[in-house]
């Protein structure tokens, strides 16, 4: 960016957010040894959002120039005025942000060259092909993401943020009785490629483990449909925290009739359950998606949603915070320069407990140990679902046969009432993305939970 956003403050005639953003990504993919994809994407631009008499106007342009900034501020102002004139609304002012200035440090590492990246992935692919010739197919895909933002608000916030993530997704497919059976895993997370992946060899033990699971999964059985006592591995707990609880506690969904609306202050889960949407630091470490200042210029703070089973609060932007008469939590986030900030989660996690995962499995007479999730969805009623791509039967405390792909569901607050054990082991899921009009990277984490869920099967 070659322009100083602060030089355009004189264009602001109402509450205004002015943002410059650049998204960079790199995708290199191998499918069964074929280098199908090698592409870099970069999009950047400026946007403005204006609040006037209860109405919002937004505009964006890829031209990060003085003319581009003038266009977006003037157009957003015009849009807000057009709507305000036609739709009389509660035009009370939004809560003012404190005057803050924040800047994330720049990256320190030296990025590998395209050749080095391709060579790294090709080495991993050859390892799989050579060691596991029985596989019908395999995928090795690198996905790097970098988001750079600079925000100026009429309240006086000025913040520059930088977020990067590097993921390698490995997928293995075997044919069993003429039908394909697949399993995949994502490695990496927040940070630059070179800090997360020092050598292909470091991935080999994890790939070997993935293959072992696949060999058991190909012999897998359908789960028995119905309500079962299960132990959810930390990766699944993270999805549960996000899909089942987090979404229902987004204040815009609460205003739309989410089931949690009338439950503030009530016991909604087992007292073993505490759930927090962390801003940037959790359990003494930096979160997968650290947010220090959100895209409305609010200093991001941790939002405690459930404390020992009691519903404590919701996730807010400035407008919903004004409605509920609470401070904004810094949950307003936008994905691209052309997106307006929405109420989004950041790093949502159930806090670890005191039980051991091993003992939790040993305590199951007849149930399932569910290990790896795929996609998930939520509902304002708190009914959730998410796919499970790896799990095992548990009989008399012992792991048994693997199960085929399935889906689990339930009413979140009923499920959380059934939680009878929470593990000490805690884990963040790698590479979480949430879709709510726009995509956005999120952190999802938790311990293992012993609880009752509905499982889809035959």
């Amino acid at each position, binding site marked *: 960016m070659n322009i100083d956003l602060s030089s355009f403050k004189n264009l602001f005639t109402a509450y205004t957010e002015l943002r410059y953003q650049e998204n960079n990504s790199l995708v290199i993919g191998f499918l069964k040894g074929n280098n199908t994809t090698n592409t870099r994407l970069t999009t950047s631009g400026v946007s403005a959002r204006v609040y006037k008499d209860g109405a919002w106007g937004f505009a964006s342009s890829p031209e990060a120039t003085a003319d581009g900034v003038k266009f977006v501020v003037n157009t957003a102002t015009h849009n807000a005025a*057009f709507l305000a004139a036609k739709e009389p609304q509660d035009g009370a002012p939004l809560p003012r942000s404190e005057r803050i200035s924040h800047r994330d440090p720049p990256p320190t590492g030296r990025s590998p060259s395209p050749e080095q990246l391709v060579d790294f992935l090709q080495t991993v692919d050859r390892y799989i092909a050579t060691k596991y010739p029985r596989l019908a197919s395999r995928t090795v895909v690198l996905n790097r993401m970098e988001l750079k933002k600079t925000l100026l608000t009429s309240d006086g916030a000025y913040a520059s943020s930088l977020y990067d993530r590097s993921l390698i997704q490995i997928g293995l497919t075997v044919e069993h009785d003429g039908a394909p059976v697949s399993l995949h895993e994502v490695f990496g997370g927040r940070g630059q490629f070179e800090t997360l992946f020092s050598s292909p060899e470091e991935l080999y033990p994890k790939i070997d483990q993935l293959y072992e699971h696949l060999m058991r999964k190909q012999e897998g059985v359908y789960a028995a449909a119905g309500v079962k006592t299960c132990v959810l591995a930390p990766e699944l707990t993270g999805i549960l925290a996000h899909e089942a609880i987090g979404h229902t506690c987004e204040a815009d969904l609460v205003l739309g009739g989410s089931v949690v609306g009338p439950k503030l202050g009530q016991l909604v889960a087992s007292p073993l359950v505490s759930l927090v949407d962390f801003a940037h630091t959790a359990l003494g470490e930096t979160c997968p998606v650290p947010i220090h200042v959100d895209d409305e210029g609010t200093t991001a703070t941790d939002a405690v949603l459930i404390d020992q089973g009691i519903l404590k609060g919701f996730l807010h932007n400035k407008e919903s915070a004004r409605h509920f008469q609470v401070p904004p939590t810094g949950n307003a986030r936008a994905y691209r320069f052309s997106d307006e900030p929405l109420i989004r989660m950041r790093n949502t996690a159930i806090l670890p407990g005191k039980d051991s995962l091993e003992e939790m499995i040993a305590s199951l007479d007849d149930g399932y140990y569910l290990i790896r999730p795929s996609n998930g969805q939520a509902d304002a009623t708190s009914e959730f679902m998410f796919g499970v791509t790896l799990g095992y039967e548990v009989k008399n405390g012992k792991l048994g046969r693997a199960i085929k792909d399935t889906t689990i569901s339930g009413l979140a607050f009923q499920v959380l009432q059934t939680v009878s054990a929470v593990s000490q082991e805690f884990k963040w899921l790698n590479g979480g993305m949430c879709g709510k009009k726009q995509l956005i990277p999120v952190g999802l984490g938790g311990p293992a939970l012993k609880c009752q869920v509905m499982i889809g099967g035959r």
Partner: protein
Amino acid sequence: MPTKELNHIALDALKQAGAEKAEAVLVKTEKTELNLENGALKLIRTTIDHHLRLTALRDQRQGSILLNKINRNTLAAAVQEVLAIAASSAPDPAHDIAPYQPAKVFDKGEATPDLDLMYERFKTFIRDVTVDFPRIILLNAYLDFTRQTTFFQNSNGVDFTVNQGGYRFAVTFSAQEATGSSSFNNTGFFTQNLDQDLLDCGSLRILLAQANQGQAPRKVPEKFTGEVIITPDCLEGFLHSLLGITISDGPLIAGTSPFRHKLEQPVASPDLTLASRPVSPEIKSGYFITSDGYEAQNATIIEHGVLKTFLLSQYGANKTGLPRAVNDGGAFVVTPGDQPLAALLKGVKRGRLLNRFSGGAPSPNGDFSGVAKNSFYIEDGALQYPLCETMIAGNLIHLFQSITGISQERIDFGTALLPWIRAQGITISG
């Protein structure tokens, strides 16, 4: 603002820098969008964007780059970078660009939005929903007008220009019930103009009327295997999933597709005829060129249950030796059946009307399971009550082989034209 001339400059620069083959695609988009949140119009958005995608091939190695900061300086750097990316790639003789085709300009839809009319239509929709469906809660909705111009040129002489414009409406809603609100549901449609009231388009009236009944949802009485009537809103997702695991590039290149040896063979019920018709007037959105630079054509994918084409790109076709598809899929048109929807319903002894499916991604072999949302329990040929906490499980391939009826009625979404489909063999549990 970048113009088509930029593509020619880019192609010349790529060739001069050593590319044996090159492709340049410039896309310019302008969008005007009205947004509703929790019953009230809250936001107007105006977004302008453009991006340039450059692809270079050299020594059978391919690289590509997409950028939206486009001027002569950034272009020079992008040309060097895309060649560096190509040089880093593993060689693959299957990479190629589209061959020469006569130059063509395609135009469809309006050039500019009528913001006042957009506002009036949206206000009328909100008012009509309030009056006709008083239990409905409009959670969020948007009406946008998008105008997009695409310039597609490559070093083989391909020279296409596409101008398209139209309106898209999407809404998410729930309904007030005795103890809170129902599960939310969503639908939408695409139209080239705003001649009709929004409420009269797509499946809006049907879905809103069902949700407005306010009947308390219940669980299914017991686990059973029964019939399911898949609504048009739900069908499109099922079709994309089925084709994604069977006839698209990924599973065919991997050699794991259950349909890899099934061209011109039965793969579905003889009742099913499915076409992809992106350039047909019955599809209001559609597309004129494929993502790899061919002029798109309509195609029948499944005719009376027989697989007529794969959905392979040029790369996928080169890789597998199978024929390239004449389009990119989507724009689905399913031939209507011979029974009215009421007769389909009457024929169900025990089953469900599936309005929305919320489930995990299907397995490569077609197995799926998930939650049936906004759905109804059917017994003795009649809708009994809305369902909650109900899961379904089955196999997508078997599902489309087990069709027992297709409705005469279809919903026109502007992006697809789809009937109700009745099939059997789904496990239903709660």
